[in-house]
């Protein structure tokens, strides 16, 4: 129990941040027309690709003779990049469709 209280105490500013971000996320999505659900999901999908930064950090810290970390880290950065790039490109392709004005 003590360790849990200690944990909360040490990370209190993060806990504030998390709670506020939860409200921001709810506020941003609540009043969106249903046609935009798919692109929005896809856009959010690209944003959580921010996990890439963690993968970069972990690969950056790996010792040059620690092959396990190097290989796993490499794969981590690779799939993280796939998430980011693929996510944004797919979203852009979807939204491109919405922008197209009738050409007559």
């Amino acid at each position: 129990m003590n360790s849990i209280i200690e944990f909360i105490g040490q990370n209190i500013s993060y806990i504030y941040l998390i709670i506020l971000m939860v409200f921001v996320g709810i506020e941003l999505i609540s009043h969106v027309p249903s046609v935009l659900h798919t692109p929005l999901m896809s856009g959010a999908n690209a944003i959580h690709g921010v996990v890439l930064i963690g993968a970069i950090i972990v690969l950056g810290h790996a010792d040059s003779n620690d092959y396990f970390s190097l290989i796993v880290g490499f794969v981590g950065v690779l799939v993280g990049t796939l998430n980011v790039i693929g996510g944004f490109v797919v979203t852009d392709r979807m939204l491109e469709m919405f922008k197209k004005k009738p050409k007559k």
Partner: protein
Amino acid sequence: MNHLQEIAYLIGSVGFVVGLKMMGKADSARKGNLVAAFGMAVAVIGTLFIGENGFYLIPNFGYIIGAIALGTVVGTLMARRVQMTAMPEMVSLFNGMGGLAAALISIIEWQHIEAGVSLGMFIPIIAGLIIGTVSFVGSIVAWGKLNGKIGDFRFAGQQYINAIILIIILGAAWVTYGEAQISGGHGSLTYFYLTMIVAVVYGLLFVFPIGGADMPVVISLLNSFTGVAAACGGFLYDNNVMLMGGVLVGSAGTILTVVMCKAMNRSLTNVLIGMAGSSSGSSGAAVTGSVREVQATDVAIMMKYAQKVVIVPGYGLAVAQAQHVCHELENILMEEGVDVKYAIHPVAGRMPGHMNVLLAESNVEYDKLIEMEEINPEFATTDVVLVVGANDVVNPAAKNDPTSPIYGMPILDVDNSKQIVVLKRSMKSGYAGIENALFFDPKCGMLFGDAKDSLQKLVNEVKAL
């Protein structure tokens, strides 16, 4: 951490929030995506080139930039080449990649854990592992289900089994923590990997029973899971942009999931337990009567001399790649002075908004796509409704048969119109696996065949008249 890097992360975080906000409106959506992408780029560059003492090059730069380059090329190719119809499974696949990245980070970090590890260190690592793994495995299953490689799989009492597995995961994590306290990361590797394996099992069982029609909801939920997994990484590294981005997607994704459920009039619990979408379960009241088959010529005449035609596109249209010829038919009818509109059900296609994207791709004007609430009152004044490859979204059982699995789902009231023509490959039932009484309605005629071929015939017939 260097202040410059903090500023880069701040720009990244603000980019995410503003970008997501802009994506919520049709006019600014595309720019919003670019704003979010810009935020991401700034954050990544800040990580690569800014260290403790100002500008530097991150160690192992060669490997990192190599992986990024490879990921960029492959990701761009995949995203560019994918057919618009296959978009939902692509999103699912990319989501799984994010989950995998989160799990891999935890696997590496575990190697560096020392005895007496604090909860503050342990929780983000183990949570990143569990949530990332579930999200990865679940997304891959969802991907396989959407492109038809994996079927539904369910057994009685599955929800209880899932609940038990969830408890086992938490128990395993707790044992891992205890073991790591004594012997550090290396000493507790077995328990760590055991936890991961149970998470894999959970990911499989979590998505296997869910019916294909509910897949978008699940993908959206897994999407928010990956967000939470990314946030765990942020916690671990005191990295604000990961934390902000992750939590933002976590909460936005959860709300999006709930909003999607509402649009389909399904409760999240029902989706997760897998109440509908089963072919073996209740199929509602049996439907009797005979169907009336019609020929393309008759339909062409009907439409040409109609005042108002409403097209109801469904997944069948997408599968047959018939959106272009559909647009052609619309153009020809417009030239004949017929008022043509499209009725878009919130879940037409496989995801909310999916059909709009497909039709927009073939240059159908945005304002011709009418949403369900707006078009429903118009059916009474519609002469011909052309249902192209849609089924469950026009099934009257949703309104008047309480025993039907789709009862309560809002549908398009096509039966209020004067004539209905259904373009369908066969009498096979739709995604929900239930009979459709609409097909037996005396006003309804069936034009059997591939959606694209049938539409092409209609185009030719209308031209020939």
